């Protein structure tokens, strides 16, 4: 392995906890069948009213009474389960010391936890009669830092919030940490929880009852390391991380999502010295309405038409997963051809209100 090859950032393993079920196999099966994973749950605020959402099957909706877990919100428990799924797949552990192992994680946090914590301050006789056991869960970094405690990850522990960009941003941030020698192995990914409070918040952000697409929960987590280290630790890369790139556009100043995404992907391909004709798979975010059309038109412009390259859009099947949506897209790129390593570059794109971004994966080095 040459020095340059050894320094390539690679993904060597991944797992997912999604409305398709637990683990990478369940995710691959769901993606392959195209099964819609959106279920109906009973409204907590208006019992008897159905709410459509992408729920992780079998994951209890209730807070368990188990001591030690009682204070943990659904987001933290989902994240703990997700990291456990990934780590139990590592026979003999991650292959480096706890100080060199870290986590880079994106989430929006638990909206419900904050509302409930402060709500109690208003409800109780005295304003400080809050549930102090849940105070740490009101911080957005709770899920990742709890994962560090449970799994003994003593290296960098970073939480990011960046809306739908989250699942791609963590990959870029992980690579920077690895390049600067701040860690040897990083678990990078994103997760969100389902709560009805999140449904109501999304409706408010979309300005109308039922206006938001069905909310989804769960996440995906990837083992990211440099190729040289992966080889030394006996892990086979599934893909090279060729790059990530992000852009903003400002509709009030005439900016358009499609143009921004076109420019973003062009810059990313230039940086990675990869031609659009080399790409054999595109996993797009495909939001409803005009934004989705903007994404399509940018991709058509880049690839010469909707049939020129294989395209996937798992978001429609899973629901609106916030920052986990782009992590699910990365998982889909890795799952699209079964458990084998990637053989040709795959592009992941998202468009959102004011923001676009893309990530490029390639075949493993060597």
């Amino acid at each position, binding site marked *: 392995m040459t020095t340059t090859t050894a320094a*390539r*950032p690679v993904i060597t393993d991944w797992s997912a906890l999604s409305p398709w079920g637990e683990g990478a196999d369940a995710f691959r099966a769901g993606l392959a069948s195209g099964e819609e994973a959106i279920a109906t749950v009973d409204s907590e*605020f208006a019992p008897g009213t159905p709410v459509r959402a992408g729920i992780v099957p079998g994951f209890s909706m209730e807070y368990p009474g188990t001591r030690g877990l009682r204070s943990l919100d659904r987001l933290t428990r989902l994240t703990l389960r997700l990291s456990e799924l990934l780590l139990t797949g590592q026979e003999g552990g991650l292959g480096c010391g706890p100080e060199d192992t*870290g*986590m880079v994680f994106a989430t929006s*946090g638990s909206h419900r936890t*904050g*509302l409930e914590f*402060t709500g109690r*301050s*208003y409800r109780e006789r*005295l*304003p*400080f009669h*809050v549930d102090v056991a849940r*105070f*740490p869960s009101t*911080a957005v*970094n*709770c899920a990742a*830092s709890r994962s*560090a*405690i449970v799994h003994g990850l*003593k*290296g*960098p*522990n*970073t*939480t*990011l*919030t*960046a*809306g739908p*960009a989250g699942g791609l*941003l963590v990959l870029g*941030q992980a690579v*920077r*940490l690895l*390049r*600067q020698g*701040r860690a040897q192995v990083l678990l990078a990914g994103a997760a969100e929880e389902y709560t009805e409070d999140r449904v*109501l*918040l999304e*409706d*408010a*952000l979309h300005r109308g009852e039922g206006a938001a697409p069905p909310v989804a929960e769960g996440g995906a987590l990837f083992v990211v390391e440099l190729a040289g280290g992966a080889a030394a630790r006996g892990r086979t890369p599934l893909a*090279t*991380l*060729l*790059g*990530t790139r992000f*852009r*903003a556009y*400002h509709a009030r*100043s005439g900016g358009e999502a499609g143009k*921004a995404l076109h420019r973003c992907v062009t810059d990313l391909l230039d*940086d*990675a010295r990869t031609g659009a004709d080399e790409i054999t798979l595109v996993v797009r975010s495909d939001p409803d309405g005009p934004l989705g059309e903007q994404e399509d038109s940018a991709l058509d412009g880049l690839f010469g038409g909707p049939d020129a390259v294989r395209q996937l859009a798992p978001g429609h099947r899973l629901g609106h997963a916030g920052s986990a949506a782009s992590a699910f897209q990365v998982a889909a790129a890795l799952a699209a051809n079964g458990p084998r390593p990637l053989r040709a570059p795959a592009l992941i794109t998202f468009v959102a209100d*004011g*923001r676009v971004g893309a990530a490029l994966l390639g075949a493993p080095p060597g």
Partner: protein
Amino acid sequence: MTAGRGAGDQRVVVTGMGVVSGLGTGTAEFARSLRAGRSGIGPLEEFGRAGFAHWNVGEVGRFEAADWFRTEDPREYGRAAQFAVAATRLAVQEAGLDEEELRHRRVLVSVGTTDGGTREVDQLAELRHRTGEVRPDPDIARRTPAERLSDAVVNELRLEDVESVTVPTACAAGNYAVGQGLDALRDGEADVALCGGTDALSRKTFAGFYRLGAMSPDVCRPFDADRKGMIVAEGAGMLVLEPLGAALARGARILAEVLGYGLSCDAHHPTAPDRDGVVRAVRAAHRDAGVSGAEVDYVSAHGTGTKANDIVETAALREVFGADLPPVSALKSMLGHTLGAASALGTIACVLAITEGFLPPTINHRTRDPECDVDCVPNVAVAARPQVTQNNGMAFGGNNAVLVLGRYDGPGAAGAGEGS
């Protein structure tokens, strides 16, 4: 990040800083307050005190968001995001960067926070309690997502070639954000980084720390035998970081060099700090900066003034520095704990120590705690000419981040005299 490009090792410098705080707006006023050992602590005005037995906080006070917004409607954003925009405008102005020119550069915007839009989530909780309506008010709801903090900066400055990220790593978040800026610039993945931290006082955090018994009823006395805890506060600190070469090429005034940073996770306890975790972050920062403990001339402590923090932090510093521990002061004695802004404002104080030639004091100090064996620069700032300064950040979840800054003496240096 792009695999095709070799990892560079650009030197990275600070060319501008912006402050919104209870100790003043803008670096000049902030520096005067720190040098004078002023207290920014006073009674809570931002929300109701009823039912609390004590209510001292560090508020920003009068703040007109409209003074800082030119393109966006400030009502689209919460108080913490508004602080971030104001601090960024000040920093960009101090850096002498033309905003139109900035729009043509590749920028990383990284804003640390503890509470994000919690101030506005408080309002939603209050409305739900008062009216019984579970559906949130859309005008308030859109101010609540945490990513609105970095997005506010990106939108207001109309940046396009930009990576926008909010870093909710609680009370070490400002250092995380500056570290992210350093890594992106070193890697050649940004031309400019706008980074720091922000938070607005919230009922959630006030009630939570109050219930934990972590809050002092009067003032914050870090390292003092009679310390009774922290004082929660609010504010924002933002910095402009550039590669040295680019800063020199545009004739920028260079305030200091970002020498390096270190991250670690205690992986130990959700709220209690851990000595070994802090030691690892400090050592990682020194290694990244290429300095030994003996070269560090000043440490801006995390210094919350709680029993646990100050003992653990002192022990960690002693473990790394041994007998060579330089003066260690705690800004939180003056500012209170500005949460996500705390280590950003600490970083700014570390730069000011270099450019203005003084070590900020730990005020309210009466009796040194024997378990906190540090020279905390008691009560009065001292004149000094530090070459290397260190800023500690420790957070809930055991998220530690330590930053090291250095005097820049080359061409373009801001130039500092001895302290006055």
